[in-house]
């Protein structure tokens, strides 16, 4: 049976509703046999800034220090990227900011181009979680943003899957939760940073997503293990393998 690692990332700059949901998803994922989980939160990390478009990462790809836009003593994006590369499944949760992800999360997304060289995230399974302070708060759009990110990395995307929480479903293409139930607890009211605990539907959806990502990750890993690398490899010289081919030619891989 294949052992897999699921990496969960909370894309919120504080320890609040997003963290609760991602941890709930990871807990559900860990219930499957042979599943290990790792968790990181942007709230605990330094994000020094966005992509500076120097393309150092593209000219000289590096597994140890993928993005060299900022000094590593004041920036933790490489820690996140290395964790993503070493995982088999990835769950990302975000609070919805303007129908999309928060700026700090977008910095991580943009700078992940540094692991796009060689398609280091290819074939990993990805799922998204979003939480907002309104029912139609832009969750679907934020999760779409995460999916677009996953697609560019050639990852395999899933939604919450067929299982359902005991009540209803919070989203299909990703787990969607509202901070508060039956009405959102607004951001200037007490208890708002953990109000998602009231949303049984959203919490249940996060659990379903965690299990679905774990289930598919195990299946994909078992599938990858049963094929030889040459059977799955993109033909050398064909579009899709070229970045590493070029790096090899230049002797910088």
């Amino acid at each position, binding site marked *: 049976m294949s052992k897999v690692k699921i990496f969960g990332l909370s894309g919120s700059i504080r320890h609040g509703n997003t963290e609760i949901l991602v941890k709930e998803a990871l807990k559900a994922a860990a219930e499957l046999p042979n599943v290990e989980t790792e968790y990181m939160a942007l709230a605990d990390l330094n994000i020094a800034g966005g992509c500076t478009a120097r393309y150092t990462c593209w000219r000289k790809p590096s597994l140890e220090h993928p993005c060299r836009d900022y000094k590593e003593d004041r920036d933790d994006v490489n820690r996140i990227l290395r964790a993503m590369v070493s995982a088999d499944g990835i769950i990302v949760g975000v609070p919805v900011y303007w129908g999309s992800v928060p700026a700090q999360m977008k910095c991580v997304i943009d700078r992940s181009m540094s692991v796009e060289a060689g398609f280091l995230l290819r074939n990993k399974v990805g799922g998204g979680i979003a939480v907002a302070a309104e029912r139609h708060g832009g969750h679907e759009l934020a999760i779409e943003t995460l999916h677009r990110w996953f697609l560019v990395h050639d990852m395999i995307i899933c939604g919450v899957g067929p299982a359902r929480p*005991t009540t209803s479903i919070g989203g299909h293409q990703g787990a969607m939760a509202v901070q508060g139930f039956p009405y959102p607890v607004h951001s200037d009211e007490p208890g708002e940073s953990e109000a998602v605990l009231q949303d049984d539907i959203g919490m249940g959806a996060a659990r379903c997503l965690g299990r679905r990502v774990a*289930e598919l990750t195990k299946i994909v890993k078992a599938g990858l293990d*049963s094929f030889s690398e040459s059977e799955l490899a993109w033909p050398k010289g064909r579009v899709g393998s070229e970045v590493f081919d070029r790096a090899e030619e230049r002797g910088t891989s």
Partner: protein
Amino acid sequence: MTQVKLFGISGSPKKKGSNTTRMVAAALEGASAFEGVETDLVELGKLTIEQCNGCRSCRKKKVPYCPVIDDDMNPLYPKLMEADGIILGSPVYFASVTSLTKAFMDRTTCLGGAVGFALRYKVGAGIAVGGTRHGGQELTLAMIRNYFLMMGGIVVSGIPPHGYWGGAGVAGDISEDEWELYGQKINALDVCRDLGRRVAIVCKLLKAGIMVEGEELLSFDLGKTQAAAY
């Protein structure tokens, strides 16, 4: 040898000369380059498909087909159930799929929650052909991929960088619309061939993986399928 079946659907209302059909056929051709891949192509433009009328009979009866409307959707349900990968292509009509394609999508509601999501281990990918270069292909592809996710399926990219969101093309002569990528000349049909190949690879991965992990996972309670909620 892992055998997989890919089902390609072209949502163009044109009965002949459709670019979308050419693109979907190219995707299936790309997939067939692998051994053990069987393909099937359906052109919705040649069929009569009525809109879903929202009666929810499929959900009440919990059947994986539409029990109320008798039309050309009937033979498509078993094809969808048997496929391992589904490639859905549509022309871009106002940054969205054609109404014909949408009618097809709506009539597959019966394969959703009420029957435990028949597409839950199937891979889906999209193809969109627009009238101009930035003609709404990406939004149409977003719609197709969210359709697959809402059906409980699994979504993959075409091959980055030319197929991030799926297979996108520009109408006109798609085999002549070429551009250069890393020293190679490619056109929209090549993008689709790569997409088909990618779908075939992921279908094989899933199928092989299910054979290894399936028994253990099936015996593990993944949660109640709340068919009644529908």
